[in-house]
């Protein structure tokens, strides 16, 4: 057996819901119930071995009803991906694509080509649950990455250490874990040879490997000597003894907020190494681990929060506002803050919380009831029940429930005996309750 513990408790709707939030973008209506009926093993299997992808729901469009132009128009790349998260029938594949976007964090701020960014995105999706060494190899020669970390600036005449360093520090080993400054410089020599041209009005084109730009001399990397090339560079990094622990610990951190205990980490490392460094077995083990179900809630990333609200409401993407709203909430896709990606332990502060509030504003827009025409019960509890029904009955704790109920009571209290106020305040309170539920702690952490 693998030696990794499996959750042995009851796999009910609450557990299925948590699984869907951690491994995807939350449930559509009825999805958690259906998943719970399958039991843990089969539920995870549907995620790790999904059928061919189907996109469920209306095609995305901008605010004027036009199709998206993700290669060209500002922000359309972001909402294109949000739409894919909303409509996909393969949530884990999409979620892992997001994991790799953070792991190999590349920003259009340095690439300046949405097309190259989306090509990289497709590469990450294609290898999402495959072999990590293969993924690393493909990323190393990916044009967006070559531009982002100066890989195509790095030649035998003028070495550039940027990619060589981050490959070891951020992608495979971790800072200060088993490499020296000399390894970085020698690794940069091995990685020489990629080039591209610049064409006016088009941008970066003609990405290629040019042997004449490669430093063919002998390098010493990790105490090994050889005329290493870029493929050797990727191969040597994942052979380092510190790589498996880096890989499993980092991968774990995307799914479980508390670090794995030593025994679990070692078992996951063994599993990773004996499976030829394939990603899927490790992800499968993490998704079945007791720590995912027994441990504390995990704050959703802004993209997951945004896509999740839309999935819950079966609402399609019909605005590009989610792009700047993503910036406000601290996660503009294709534009991570730097090559280390987003800080997953610090999603929430007073600025990003406001971004989430505004995401909810936009998500809720078409559902807002008109106080002059709609009717709602003049009863705080009934209003709260209706608002919870609207969100498919999320489980809220007592503290949140009493905050919401207290709001509804005081809002209705303000209406006094004025009849138009009694009518309109109840409707506005319903709109407000839906909004407050969307930003409640239970909806922001799952």
């Amino acid at each position, binding site marked *: 057996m693998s030696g990794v513990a499996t959750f042995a408790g009851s796999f009910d709707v609450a557990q299925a819901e948590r699984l869907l939030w951690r491994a995807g973008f939350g449930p559509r209506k009825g999805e958690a119930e259906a998943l719970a009926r399958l039991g843990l093993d089969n539920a995870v299997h549907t995620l790790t071995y999904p059928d061919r992808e189907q996109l469920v729901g209306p095609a995305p469009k901008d605010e004027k009803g036009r199709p998206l132009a993700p290669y060209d128009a500002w922000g359309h790349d972001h909402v294109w991906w949000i739409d894919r998260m909303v409509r996909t029938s393969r949530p884990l594949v999409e979620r892992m694509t997001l994991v790799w976007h953070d792991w190999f964090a590349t920003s259009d701020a340095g690439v300046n080509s949405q097309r190259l960014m989306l090509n990289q995105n497709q590469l990450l999706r294609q290898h999402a649950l495959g072999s990590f060494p293969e993924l690393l190899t493909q990323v190393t020669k990916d044009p967006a990455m070559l531009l982002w970390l*100066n890989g195509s*600036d790095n030649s035998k005449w*003028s*070495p*550039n250490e*940027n990619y060589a360093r981050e490959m070891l*520090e*951020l992608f495979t080993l971790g*800072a200060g874990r088993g490499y020296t400054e000399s390894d*970085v410089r020698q690794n940069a020599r091995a990685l020489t040879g990629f080039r591209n041209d610049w064409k006016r009005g088009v941008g970066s084109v003609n990405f290629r490997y040019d042997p004449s730009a490669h430093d063919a001399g002998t390098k010493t990397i990790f105490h090994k000597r050889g005329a290493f090339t870029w493929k050797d560079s990727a191969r040597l990094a994942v052979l380092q003894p510190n790589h498996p622990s880096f890989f499993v610990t980092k991968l774990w951190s995307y799914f479980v*907020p508390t670090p794995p205990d030593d025994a679990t980490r070692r078992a996951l490392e063994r599993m990773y190494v004996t499976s030829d460094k394939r990603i899927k077995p490790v992800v499968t083990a993490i998704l079945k681990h007791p720590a995912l179900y027994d441990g*504390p*809630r995990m*704050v959703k990333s802004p993209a997951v929060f945004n896509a999740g609200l839309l999935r819950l409401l079966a609402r399609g993407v019909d605005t590009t506002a989610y792009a700047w709203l993503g910036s*406000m909430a*601290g996660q503009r896709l294709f534009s991570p*803050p*730097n*090559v*280390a990606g987003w*800080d997953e332990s*610090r999603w*929430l*502060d*007073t*600025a990003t*919380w*406001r971004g989430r*509030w*505004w995401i909810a*504003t936009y998500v*809720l*827009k078409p559902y*807002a009831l*008109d*106080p*002059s025409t709609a009717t709602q019960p003049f009863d705080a509890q009934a209003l709260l029940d209706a608002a919870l029904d609207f969100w498919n009955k999320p489980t809220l*704790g*007592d*503290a*949140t429930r*009493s*905050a919401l109920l207290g*709001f509804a009571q*005081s*809002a209705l209290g*303000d209406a006094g005996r004025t009849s*138009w106020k009694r009518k309109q*305040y109840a409707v*506005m309170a319903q*709109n*407000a309750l839906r*909004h*407050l539920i969307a*930003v*409640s*702690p*239970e909806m922001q*952490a*799952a």
Partner: protein
Amino acid sequence: MSDCNHCVGLSRSRFLHRAAAEAGRGLPAIEPGMPAPAGTGLSRRSFLAHSAGAALAVYGASKLGLRALDEGIAAAASSPAQPVIVSVFLEGGADALSVLSPQGDPLYKKLRPHLALSGGPAFSEDDRLHWHPAAAALATLHSEKKVTVMPAVGYTNADQSHFTSRHYWEVGATSTALRTGWLGRYLDRVGLADNPLQGLSLDDTLAPALATAKMPVSSIDGPDQYDFWSNRVWGEVEDRMLAAIGALGLQPTDAGLQAAGGVAAQVDRLRTQLLPFQGQDGKPGYTSPVAYPKSDDAFPRRLAGLAAMLGAGLPLRCVALSAPGQYDTHSDQAASLASGLQLTTDSLLAFQRDLEARGLADRVLVHVWSEFGRRAGENGSGGTDHGAAGVGFLVGTRAKGTMVGEFPGLKAGLDEEGNVKATSDFRAVYAGVLEQWLGTDAAAVLPGVDSFARPALVK
């Protein structure tokens, strides 16, 4: 604090007076077309509700908001004005050898055949060095004795990882294990449990240097940019809804829920503190006595907002911003460095003049820093790779204005990897700031700092 004509009703005394006068008194309902009631200074967000022939227009701030505001102001007013430290981060590793270029060092042109600079204002404390032409604003302030320069600041055995080195600077120690920032630990010692403005990031997200263990801190884009809107919710119901945000903060034991709830409570507090700054029609709820550089970048606007907040007497202590520009200049360094440096330093000059005009300049010290400098020898891409010691500044009327650590030269001053060796340590600078400016025990904030001699930073 002096009452100032430029601050549009936001001076400390008028602010307090108004808050007290308005607290507990309901704002009048007004009809469309009526002018905003004089003297409130509050933004007028009017929403027209066509309902049963009635039209409503209400103010964005209610008696609820004002009551909370009044409490916050009263708490701030009861304590004396505090010194303020403003941290400005040049993210990416700014090239010290361009910001202050050693044009008088015979090795400079050899190491920088394509990137060597010429001209720029002379640096009066070392005739080898010249200011970058784009940093002329700093040269101006330096000539007024308002800039303390650290020409080679860093630490021994510099880590050339952006993230490791930046983390060291943020936590104030060469430790990867510390999770709180150096300013955050200072606020944990001296801060208040109900004042998120004491540690303020003017940024999209919270600066890690401000991360606390206990006390609330906050992050905003600008003081006039903290509004909340819900579809078809207005008036008293909107006020109640916004007030309920704080109630979402009362959460039981789960760590994830506490994280989400704790921020909601801070949002509530901050929103009420900033209500008077909400602008209208795209204009901020304050004006500045000086002109700031025009830019799409938020940096000058954020500094202008910061000066206005200080002018209004808001209880700020530690503020963090990211400088505009791209400092990780592995390629095409000449152009990309100059534009960011220009906007950064021009904005800092405007901020200093703003504080001087408001009579606040002796309360604020600005610390400019970067996670490392860049390698002395240029690379083949028209850029420079990661190096060791970098350049740093303390800017302000109270800055001592004399150099800390010398420029070590490009011959004896380089380590075996070709990087500039540090002649001052960032932890010693922090200790000096904590002791000489913030008046607190540095050893209680910075682990192991007593092995460093303290440079004189403040006059």
